[in-house]
């Protein structure tokens, strides 16, 4: 059995935290693979039982990926932040792939698409939410990040407050505003 390259990931995380953006590019595939693998395992185990617990998943990935001895920052907030981002990408990638699977790799869009037997509109909704979230990030990066951490990362308001270094009340207010705006965007799109 191959173990994930713990040391490497820990270093990359540290680099990324220190502002080295290229570390993220290296980090992404490593964490992606691990989260993806865990997600699939969770799903197969829990297909008939409980729903997927995002935080449990990220915690497990964290324990597996990060060399605990060499963790020299006080909290796990960076890991959560990056995990939420990656979780978002994994899910959106899946949703897109699902929508455009027939043409392979999403290189070319097709207009006719078979609807999944399980979730008719989940993929489409998710992709649209992602797009709306990107527009939100342009106007208001922090509120967009609150949604990312909560909806994709599965963090609660206190944890988000810790990651973003703001008060929990601010998180609640940001969430309300962002959610209302996203809801409005999605319902306007649906009406068109």
């Amino acid at each position, binding site marked *: 059995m191959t173990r994930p390259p713990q040391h490497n990931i820990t270093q990359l995380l540290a680099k990324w935290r220190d502002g080295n953006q290229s570390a993220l590019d290296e980090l992404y595939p490593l964490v992606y693979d691990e989260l993806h693998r865990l997600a699939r395992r969770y799903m197969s185990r829990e297909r008939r039982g409980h729903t997927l617990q995002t935080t449990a998943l990220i915690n497990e990935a964290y324990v597996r990926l990060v060399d605990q001895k060499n963790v020299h920052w006080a909290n796990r907030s960076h890991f959560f932040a990056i995990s939420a981002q990656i979780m978002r990408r994994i899910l959106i990638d899946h949703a897109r792939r699902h929508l455009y699977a027939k043409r392979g790799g999403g290189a070319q869009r097709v207009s*006719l698409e078979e609807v999944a037997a399980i979730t008719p509109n989940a993929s489409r909704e998710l992709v649209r939410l992602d797009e709306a979230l990107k527009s939100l990030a342009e106007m208001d990066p922090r509120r967009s990040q609150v949604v990312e951490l909560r909806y994709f990362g599965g963090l609660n308001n206190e944890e988000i407050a810790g990651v973003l270094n703001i008060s929990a009340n601010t998180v609640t207010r940001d969430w309300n505003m962002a959610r209302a705006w996203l809801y409005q965007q999605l319902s306007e799109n649906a009406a068109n």
Partner: protein
Amino acid sequence: MNPERWQQISRIFKSAVSLDPEARNAYVAGQCGSDDSLRAEVEKLIESHQQASEEDFIGGMAAEAAAPLLVVVEDEVGPPQRTLNNGQQFGSYVILDALGAGGMGEVYLARDTRLDRTVALKILPPDITADKRRMQRFRQEAKVASSLNQPNILTVFEFGEVGGLTFLATEFVDGETLRDHLRGKKKLKLVEILDINIQVLAALDAAHEASIVHRDIKPENVMIRRRDHVVKVLDFGLAKVTEKKISKGEEESEAVTAFKTAPGIIMGTINYMSPEQAQAAATDQRTDIWSTGVMLYEMVSGKMPFSGVTTSHTIVQILEKDPSPLTKDVPAELERIVLKAMAKDPDERYQTAKDMLIDLRSLKRKLEVQAEIDRTSSPSTERAAVVGDQPPVVHGNKRGLVIMLVTAMVLVTATIFGINMWRSARERAKVVTPAAPVPATSDERQLTYWITVQKFKGGKPYQNPFPLAGEINFEPTYQIRVNVRSPQAGHLYILSEGPASTQPEFVVLFPSTTANEGSSLLTATQTVQIPEKSWFQFDQQRGTEKLWLVFSADPVPELESVKQYANRQTKGLIPNAAENKSVQNFLTEHSASKPQSEKGESVTILKTPGNLLVYALRLEHH
């Protein structure tokens, strides 16, 4: 929107949502001053905020909503243990797919080759068939359910045995169990909760009329059909014909009842069990009323009314504890109904399913009327929640009159709608079958097609699916399915071609590993659905999609060689450029002479001389 404007809106919104409605209006008005567009934007956002909270929009987690995608796309872990394989012949059935495995056996999607219909096939594993008691339960389920004929009861077609395996063939319901439905969404709308329970009670009412008691009503035994949200009650496995079967005297039948309902022997879930079941006392139809009450309580509150750390704790609660009161936002009338259904003494409960159904239905109407009034009377003021806690307070005669008129109107509408629902449920099977095939001569090819359209509104199916002769402009939110058949036997191939590009790419849709077992050969009048048991959906990009229909007296080598790609992995996409090209050449060459097309009211008939018909069906969407 520019960031400054956004900041301005966000500042007002932030304070406004923390105020009560009246103060809020005044505050927003004060802050916006004469800037009407700012005010409109803020109000729209507040409205969205309320809607989003009410619907619990993105209240769960993305991974939950998208989790099925993670397994749909890649199925690396492999399928669960199964007795039968896809494509395998099983008696007169052909296995199409595994639907799942439960405590009572494996369930497969299968085609009944005698009657050419899709069924759900439940197979009992051999270790259970060896158990006479469980076998008896299974046999009972088949018999009892078969004797009922009600739209909310799952229809049983056949009970039998093949190669030592005992099976039950039932109607296939394309949908999810109420349990999964409850898991999927954080909060159901009250009207939807009422609607589901009304349908469950309609099923029970019919069963009770026939002296059949279900005895195991729980969300796992209730299916919701995807296309129209019709509810089906399954698993009459514990049902027992209470009177007709008593042949050996009262006493023995009582003993049998007690034995069968003894906890731990048969029942999987005890939370829905009535006090009389928990005590292994005599039970009757009122036990189903109890269980429906528990289910209703759970759906409304998100909690089980009786749930202890162990089975015995739960039973003690069922026998002694009053359920915790429902929250204040639940209408008092609904709480009354729930509590009446869950009266410990069966004599104090609703005595019939119909009585409870009538109360739920009139409550549902009341809520709908109220929602209508809220919607129409004062759009500018604070929207009252649809859930509404009390009947509307009437100030003066004028308002009273309006309410009465709206009530009358909604009642009429509800009645008409109700009739339509029932009628269409009965007629649905017939609806999509076109007129009798026109005889075709041997020196021509004839193919009939029609398109089934499902409209969508606000992300939900809207009205029933309807057939169309084809080739119209589709709304992007519609879902469609193409149906093909011919009075002649022959080889059918269906491929799709994406919107125009330099090099068209083709996707094989029929035959596939699941459709017609990979064979292109169609028998006369056999109907093919593309996609089978599913729908096509358009993406946001406008354009024309070509659906190629090829119907030939002989197999077409160019297409026979690519049908292998219509499987789960490649999803019909032809990966090989040379093969893709050969398909393109074939289609181009043979589509030069277009078939004659007769467009009828709900079907189009294509005819062409010779023994090969090639037709490009254009699906445009905007």
